[in-house]
């Protein structure tokens, strides 16, 4: 059973509205999948806490006040308009009265929490897997992060740190020095992006893996060298 399906069914499961066969399948999955089980426990905890809260319904006077303030706001906006517009869908929606009980609000909160938890779980589960791009519109940010090579994040961090130091100093450099630096850094970056794109399309390509790391090193050395020049 798919994790997404399990998490979506958890609310019904806790309400006891699932069929017996569905419950069995879900419980088998929960026994084998700790992340989904954690989501279930959290959801159950929130629901039981919400049940213990006292029921507060807003007084009728509060709704009157809200309605009045909306009407005042609308009439101010409407001044100067040549024709009176028909109330739109939004204003009709705004004029309606909604009453939520705290358990309902808690339930909505729980659903949001469950979705966030599930997204985080999926992120962490896919982080170590090799990237597989087949068709589609191109690699996403998550895919790009997942395809990072060992040691690449550290290397990038080091480069960014050195780059920010050099950027602060660059204004004082002679124009020829700045030109040489920018031009060579640009060429390395161009190559790096090219190799990175190839590597995203074919993550197992060892030559491109090697090239990407060598280019990062080249970039780092260039920054180190210019950092040494007075």
């Amino acid at each position, binding site marked *: 059973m798919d994790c997404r399906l399990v998490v979506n069914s958890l609310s019904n499961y806790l309400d006891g509205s699932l069929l017996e066969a569905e419950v069995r399948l879900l419980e088998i999955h929960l026994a084998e999948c700790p992340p989904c089980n954690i989501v279930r426990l959290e959801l159950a905890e929130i629901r039981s806490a919400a049940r213990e809260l006292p029921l507060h319904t807003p007084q009728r006077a509060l709704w009157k006040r809200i309605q009045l303030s909306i009407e005042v706001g609308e009439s101010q906006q409407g001044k100067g308009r040549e024709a009176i517009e028909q109330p739109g869908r939004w204003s009709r929606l705004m004029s309606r009265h909604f009453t939520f009980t705290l358990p309902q609000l808690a339930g909505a909160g729980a659903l949001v929490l469950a979705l966030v938890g599930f997204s985080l779980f999926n992120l962490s589960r896919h982080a170590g897997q090799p990237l597989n791009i087949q068709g589609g519109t191109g690699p996403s940010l998550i895919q790009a992060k997942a395809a990072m090579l060992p040691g690449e994040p550290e290397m990038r961090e080091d480069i960014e740190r050195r780059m920010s130091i050099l950027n602060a100093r660059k204004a004082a450099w002679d124009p020829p*020095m700045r030109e*040489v*630096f920018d031009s*060579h850094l640009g*060429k390395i970056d161009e190559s790096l992006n090219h190799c990175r794109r190839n590597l995203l399309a074919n993550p197992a390509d060892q*030559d491109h893996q090697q090239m990407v790391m060598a280019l990062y090193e080249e970039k780092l050395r*260039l920054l180190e*060298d210019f950092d040494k020049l*007075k």
Partner: protein
Amino acid sequence: MKITWENNSVSPWIARRLVLSLIVVSGLAIPVAAQSFSKSFRVSPEASDLEVVNKMGSVTVVAAEGNAITITAHQISGEARIEAVQKSPSRVKVEVSGSAPVDFVVGVPPHSTLDLLCYKGSITVKYVTGQLRARTTEGDIQLIGIRSVRVEARSTSGDVSFSGDVLPSGSYTLKSFSGRVEATLPATADFKLQASSFRGGLELGGFQMSFNKQTDKSVDAVSGSGRAAVYLWTQEGSIHLHRKP
């Protein structure tokens, strides 16, 4: 400027030539105003250490018998400040500030450790036996007759070439982002080779090597028992490995 003449003075043709010659001579006078710098430091012949941080201009270092590091610098134009300091009895540092090109010729004891850097200019090192590090952004690096246990040469857009011995447990790294990388090693050299060229191709000469990995872009191989490590890398250029005749 208006040039006039009278009938009994020089002809207009001669006058014009004189003025033209003056202009040419004054133009040529600029390089004549170039500055030279010379300094010598007494160091131990067994353990000396030289660091040169140049900006523009060439650096040539040649091994010479004796116990001195002799620096000669030639500044062709502009304003540059050369600072040469003996940091310790065995260590000398030369640094250039300002924006003018300076060409250096330095004599060092053969065992000297060298650390050479410039961003626009070539680097040449001849016959040294100490550890060697040379980096330039725009310019070629030529290492000739080297017998060192550790060599690192890196140019971003220039060619890098090495000829010399490969010592057991030595490490030899030659890199260029867009230039040609060339190493000429003895036929009996005992080394493991890692060579990568993304675009320019690899030419590995006549060494008898066993290959652990070989693609059109990179090679991982061993010659002999692989006691030294040779690492050749270029992104855009080509790699050439030659056997010393």
